[in-house]
């Protein structure tokens, strides 16, 4: 009797499904590899022409056809790191409050609101930044800083110049708002993975909420928290439209954080339509794309390594 019922069904469906799944997986690899190869081949004339100095030159001169990646690479890294400096404490506060302090009935709506923030298209952040934040910066914040700090001896030069409102600092602020939901959501999820018995034991010993957070939750989740921050960093590095609106689009390294700058993604977006095929400019833009790919890859690789369960300290 058991023979009849345990007869294996035809495994044709399994085979087809396995093939499809394998194809999908490999397709991603091929696509990724294809993008890297195309970017590299496209950028090759620029790499050949400028060699290593492409990375160290701060020149971007379409008239003399002399291109260097330093300004956009610098702008990309500085805005992303500044954004992290602003976003991480706030995101930590949100996650801490949501997991430890908030009344239970509030946790769900606030958590959902945070996730919704992550779904807002970046162009919306860009327009909000350009039409709301930039005028505030230009009207109040920067004139205040220029008037009060610009006359100081020695350091005054760091705060002088016209109050455009746009710039590295404004871009970092917008980026921070954009990545807070990512980091906060990751932190909240990993804070929730701490076994309650650990926390209860600590409370039982008379620890305050902050002591529990500092001595139990953070050490337990440290690696995953860093991984979540890295994911936010990855997003900040590649963000294009929102940054393009507010960074000031200047191919110079500003001497103040309020000064305008540029990022890789935004210079590619702006210059691409007026680049003739086969020109050194187009090749330099593709080379920049390749560099951004490499930077993002490094950041993601680090975050993967840190998020791996086995890597826990």
């Amino acid at each position, binding site marked *: 009797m058991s023979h009849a019922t345990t007869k294996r069904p035809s495994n044709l469906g399994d085979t087809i499904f396995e093939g499809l799944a394998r194809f999908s997986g490999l397709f991603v690899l091929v696509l990724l590899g294809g993008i890297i190869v195309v970017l590299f081949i496209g950028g090759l004339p620029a790499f050949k022409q400028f060699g290593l100095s492409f990375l160290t030159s701060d020149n971007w001169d379409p008239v003399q056809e002399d291109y260097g990646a330093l300004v956009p690479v610098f702008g990309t890294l500085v805005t992303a790191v500044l954004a992290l400096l602003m976003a991480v404490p706030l995101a930590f506060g949100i996650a801490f409050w949501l997991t430890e302090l908030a009344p239970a009935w509030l946790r769900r709506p606030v958590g959902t609101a945070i996730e919704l923030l992550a779904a807002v298209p970046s162009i919306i952040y860009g327009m909000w930044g350009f039409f709301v934040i930039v005028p505030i910066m230009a009207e109040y914040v920067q004139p205040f800083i220029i008037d009060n700090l610009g006359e100081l001896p020695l350091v005054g030069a760091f705060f002088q110049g*016209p109050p455009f409102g746009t710039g590295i600092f404004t871009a970092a602020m917008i980026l921070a708002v954009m990545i807070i939901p990512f980091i906060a959501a990751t932190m909240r999820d990993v804070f929730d993975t701490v076994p309650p018995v650990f926390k209860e034991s600590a409370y039982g010993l008379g620890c305050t909420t902050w002591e529990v957070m500092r001595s139990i939750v953070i050490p337990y989740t440290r690696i995953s928290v860093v991984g979540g921050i890295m994911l936010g960093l990855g997003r900040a590095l590649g963000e294009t439209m929102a940054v393009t609106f507010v960074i000031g689009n200047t191919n110079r390294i500003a001497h103040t954080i309020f000064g305008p700058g540029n990022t890789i993604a935004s210079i590619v977006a702006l210059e691409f339509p007026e680049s003739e095929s086969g020109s050194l400019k187009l090749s330099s833009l593709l080379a920049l794309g390749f560099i951004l790919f490499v930077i993002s890859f490094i950041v993601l690789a680090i975050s993967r390594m840190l998020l791996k369960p086995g890597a826990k300290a």
Partner: protein
Amino acid sequence: MKIALTALALGLAVSAGAQAQQITGAGATFPAPVYTKWGEAAKAAVGLELNYQAIGSGGGQNQILQRTVDFGASDAPMSAEKLETGKLLQFPTVMGAVVIIVNLPDVAMNQLKISGEMLAEIYAGKITKWNDPKIVEMNKGVKLPNLAIAPVYRADGSGTTFVYTSYLSAVSPEWKAGPGAATSVKWPAGAGAKGNDGVSATVHNTKGGIGYVENAFATQNKLTTIQLRNKAGHFVKPEMSAFIAAASAGDWVNAKNFAVDLIDRDGATSWPIVSATFIELPKDPKDPVRSANVIKFFDWAYKNGAALASGLEYIPLPEAVQTVVRAAWHSQVMSPDGKPIY
């Protein structure tokens, strides 16, 4: 076809063979509004349906060189070598002017006066304050604040930037030797913004801001423009009469490939920053019928499109120039059997 029949039945004036024939073009964004308007009008008048994609001058040149469109459009004239190797005929359609806008609290429309040399120094970061002695001397009686000058430029590669930097190069040897003229240059000072709207919004947001935009944009948005000193040494307001004066001062007869230079022309009333925008058409069309339709379209636009162009703040092409262009169409665009297609 059904629509055409219905239209006939309603007794509307529809010419014979009302089925619209498609022509495709791509390129410059600056003339896109007038091409679109012409397209709508020409569809009703001569049954030609224009599909124009404003992808930028560089993109337009690439596409016509690869022959993926019927015609290319670009703000900066294509180089003579490229036209030669690409077997392209280039001709102008309309002209436009670039104007300077400012954001100064106590300065009225067209009140401020500036020379081209000073404009170059401002954009080079050499004149940094609005109460600089040079500006004050030129503007006696205008209240100029102790405010940093915030130069704003187009961050995206654009024909407007090409025209503007060509002007700065024409009036300032230092600018010519330094940043030079192109669709995007290495700006020594200031901040960039995307598009005409981005530049005007940034100037609007920034006290002490100065920027350059196309005239149509400034007029429609009632931005505060300034007077510029022209080659003859007169200060002129950015007005249609000044643009037309500059256009007629151009040396159209001797300009190779119609790449006429309208920047900083002679004439007491000429506005100094005016330029033409161009069409590139294959001289050896694969499909002579389509190319003939392109010519038919622009011939119609020359004859009937001037009012539409002026309405959008463009400067129509002078009659004499149109005649020369028509001759070029006839003598240079040949079908495979060597006959003129138009």
